[in-house]
């Protein structure tokens, strides 16, 4: 075996392997959409976070502006405290912005939707959102629905 062929073969093999790893990292994983540690953090208290997870999306008008950084339970206010890491370029949300937990599609994953208010003051890092709406719990919705239909029937 010619040593030049061997060397070219090995070079090709290694280059192909590294290209494959690179492709997996860039094309198939979340590296390209990862924001890293920049941006700023605001918190929001929810009665119920449902199936919200760390790294879930934070959106405004359907556009992703950040990710859920952490979810903790606050023992004094008895509610879940969700830290949201907002990308640095989205730095002008009014202080009366409200946060809701929605589900994308019928069975999709849950995300935090922000809705800007009308205040002239802007949120700064560390602020806490006052207006929040919890995740929908399916049993409660069905329970309310059953209750209202039953109530409607008995009135007739």
């Amino acid at each position, binding site marked *: *075996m010619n040593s030049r062929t*061997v*060397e070219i*073969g*090995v070079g*090709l*093999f*290694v280059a*192909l*392997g*590294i*290209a*494959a*790893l690179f*492709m*997996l*990292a860039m*094309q*198939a*994983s*979340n*590296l*390209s*959409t*990862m924001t890293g540690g920049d941006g700023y953090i605001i918190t929001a208290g929810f009665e119920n976070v449902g199936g919200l997870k760390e790294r879930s999306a934070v959106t405004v008008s359907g556009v992703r502006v950040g990710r859920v950084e952490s979810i903790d339970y606050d023992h004094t206010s008895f509610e879940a405290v969700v830290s949201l890491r907002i990308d640095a370029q989205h730095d002008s949300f009014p202080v009366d912005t409200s946060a809701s937990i929605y589900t994308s599609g019928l*069975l999709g994953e849950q995300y935090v939707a922000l809705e800007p208010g009308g205040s002239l003051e802007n949120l700064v890092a560390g602020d806490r959102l006052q207006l929040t709406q919890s995740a929908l719990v399916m049993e409660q919705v069905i329970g309310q629905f059953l209750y209202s239909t039953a109530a409607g029937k008995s009135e007739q």
Partner: protein
Amino acid sequence: MLDALQHLGRATLDFFERLGRGHLLLLQMLAKLPGLLLRPGLVLVQLYSVGVLTLVIILVSGIFVGMVLGLQGYNTLVDFGAEDSLGVVVALSLVRELGPVVSALLFAGRAGSALTAEIGLMKATEQLSGMEMMAVDPVQRVIAPRFLAAFLSMPLLAAIFSAVGIYGGYLVGVPLLGVDDGAFWGQMQGAVDLHDDIYNGVIKSIVFGFVAGWIALFEGYDATPTAAGVSRATTRTVVHTALAVLGLDFVLTALMFGD
């Protein structure tokens, strides 16, 4: 009765003796690895015969495994109206499981058996003792470069397998079955985590490369130096590597993804 006991005892002792010899060889190989820095040419030749020559079977199997995953995944997901998640199914199964495991099994069949047969034949034709006579350490000259080559090529082969497989799934899913192009890649990027999925897949394949190389070289080095002995050793390499890879895969998966 006593004969049966004696058989059992001898089998147990043989087993532990082999285990000990295996670990001794491993220690020797690891100790000889730094010396290879002086002779990178030895490793290069082995990288060619272990890695480059395995590339074809990895590429072909990778694309077919990916295509089958695309077809099967689509047929199942379309019942739930969730065919947009096809990219997630294909990428996660390949990166987490099929890439490292299937390429390790193919590696055992293609390269491991060849390594065992080569070393076993060298031993049967007394080339290894010949080297010792000339004060050349066979572990340094013959075994260690092959071990390093197996160890280095396995993660690369697994990565190539996964990447080619994802494109195979893409080919079947998007142009053939009509899954949306953006949803395929977008959902995949949303679900596959660089650290949790890709790094763990690479760690798996490094472990498998280590084990596959170790078993193949030990079986060859420890083979009975006859034609029948070499053939038995080759069979054992493939069987033991497959068992070790599948067993270790369970342990590693439980450690990595079992939270």
